[in-house]
């Protein structure tokens, strides 16, 4: 009898565990489907605010295609960085950086993905869109409200080829599956918190226009605010090659 009860409990636990993982994976797929766009062109202002309140504003134009696997960012202001470009391919696994002032292109190795982009609180791997279902395995934690919006809470563990973080906690709207908050952890604990807001509908798609990354350790934050976004036309293929780095891309 004891054997039967133990087996039943064990089977039940296995079933619940498997079901939870399936739910987590299902939710992650929903988030990916809601947020990954086939192609996009946008203009973004990036405002870095230090813990002492000093601000630096950078502006850039970005293009992406192939569901976010390839992207190009071109800085348009301030003059110090104007013309510098970052080309990412393979979901951010391959990165080239072009410095206009020296007319030099350099390939960044994989470890560089952990570095800050232009002194901001976003790292290169944060900026690459990637494929979340390939980069993480998900576990459903539960449901919580974020600013009165009912959200699903997932625990994401990077896969072997995924980002360098230890794990992420993500809250996404239950209704439209758009991420509202992401916490990034390393082995020492919470590093950064990303808050997504200003949800707008553009060309039939809902998208967050504002991303604020809070650096929980340094006290700084970086806000990225889209000025324009369009999904209407696919960028030409050549702008995602090294050739585009020293060209004037419109």
């Amino acid at each position, binding site marked *: 009898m004891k054997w039967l009860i133990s087996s039943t409990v064990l089977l039940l636990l296995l079933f619940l565990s498997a079901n939870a993982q399936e739910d987590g994976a299902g939710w992650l797929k929903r988030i990916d489907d809601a947020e990954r766009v086939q192609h996009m062109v946008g203009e973004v202002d990036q405002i870095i605010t230090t813990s002492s309140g000093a601000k630096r504003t950078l502006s850039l134009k970005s293009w992406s295609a192939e569901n976010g696997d390839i992207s190009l960012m071109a800085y348009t202001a301030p*003059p110090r960085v104007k013309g510098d470009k970052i080309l990412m391919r393979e979901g951010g696994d391959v990165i080239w950086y072009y410095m206009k002032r020296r007319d030099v292109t350099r390939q960044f*190795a994989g470890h560089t993905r952990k570095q800050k982009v232009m*002194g901001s609180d976003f790292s290169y791997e944060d900026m690459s869109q990637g494929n979340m279902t390939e980069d993480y395995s998900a576990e459903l934690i539960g449901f919580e409200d974020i600013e009165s919006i009912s959200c699903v809470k997932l625990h994401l563990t990077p896969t072997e080829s995924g980002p360098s973080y230890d794990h992420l906690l993500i809250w996404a709207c239950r209704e439209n599956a758009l991420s509202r908050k992401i916490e990034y952890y390393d082995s020492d604990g919470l590093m950064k918190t990303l808050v997504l807001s200003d949800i707008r509908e553009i060309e039939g798609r809902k998208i967050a226009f504002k991303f604020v990354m809070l650096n929980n350790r340094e006290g700084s934050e970086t806000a990225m605010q889209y000025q324009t976004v369009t999904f209407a036309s696919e960028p030409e293929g050549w702008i995602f090659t090294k050739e585009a780095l020293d060209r004037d891309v419109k």
Partner: protein
Amino acid sequence: MSNRRFHFRFQTLALVVVISVFAMNSKCGCIEISGYYENTLLQEYTEDGYDNLSNASKLRVNIDAGQGDELTFTGNVNFISHHLNVNYDLKSYLPETVIVDLTRKGIPTEFMVEKNRIFLDNAYLTLRFSGMRLRAGRQQLSWGSGYGINPTDLFHRKDMLDPTYEKEGVNALRLDHNWGIGGNLSGIIVPGRKLSSSGYALKLGTHASKIGYDIGLTIHHIEDSTSLDSESYEILNQQRTALGLDLNGSLFGMGVWMEGNFNLMEVESNFSRIVTGFDYTLENGLYLMFEGMYDERSQNSDSYTARDWMEYIQFGEPISRYRYMVGIKQSFLELAEGSLFIFGGNDGSYFLNPRVDVSISQNADMTIFGAASLGDAEGQFTSGSYSVTGRISVYF
């Protein structure tokens, strides 16, 4: 009129003509002016009592003109003015035996930098047609993935203390054809006084997606003038043909690069020069890097001749056969980054190069870097010399 003044007036006139042509044809005001002002303060000190303070202002004005990118003009004019001391004496930096040798040959160790200098760093036209890019004029020809030195770049020299600073352009004609993600065939002609003294270079580059490496093969044929005659110390002009290889990618999560060439020399012995390095960023953001150089052309001993030193000072040629650099870099405050580079060689001398880069406002940066040479007094980094450089740059 001196040759130099004539060249400058010619270049300035050419720049004015080109800008005017663009301005006249421009219906949308497609001329952009940008640049920066930079003030550099340098304090040097050596243990034998040499003490020098120098200060320079630099104004760099960039001009970009053109509609679309079929035909564009890029140029910049640099105005540099030295406000304090402009006289230098190498005696304090050279080993005693070298000073004796130079004095015996009647070669002065004192020199003076131009108090005021105006020059074109870049001034080139870019024409794009049928998948080709043609660039004509004074331009930077930056090849190679090495950090401190680039064996596959025979047209520029790098400042070891500040290797990422912009390089002065070279008059050249460059044609590029690109394909795929990173395929590139590049041909360069650097005109000399005659065809035989002109420089020619070809590079075939590609991105090997399967292994994630940028790979480049280079070939140069130039008139080399980076060495001195061993007796007269006059510049030795000779034909030089170099075959090079450049690799840049990842290995076991680290960034790795290797750049080298084999040089066939008309007068001197043939030699190879190789640079290889790796870098890595730890989870806490600490950046680590190592780069080592092997140069068969240089001495394999700790006793350098006056000729070695003069080639090093005049042409930036490596002085020792082996040189390495170890570097660490970390953001230590918000908007500030600190780094320390240590250089060493096989002669027992070392060189420390601490550096701080700070963003002091939206359009202004400040850089402070130091230099201290330690170890063997006869080594390539002659011990007992120290310097601190402060630089503020304001961009517009």
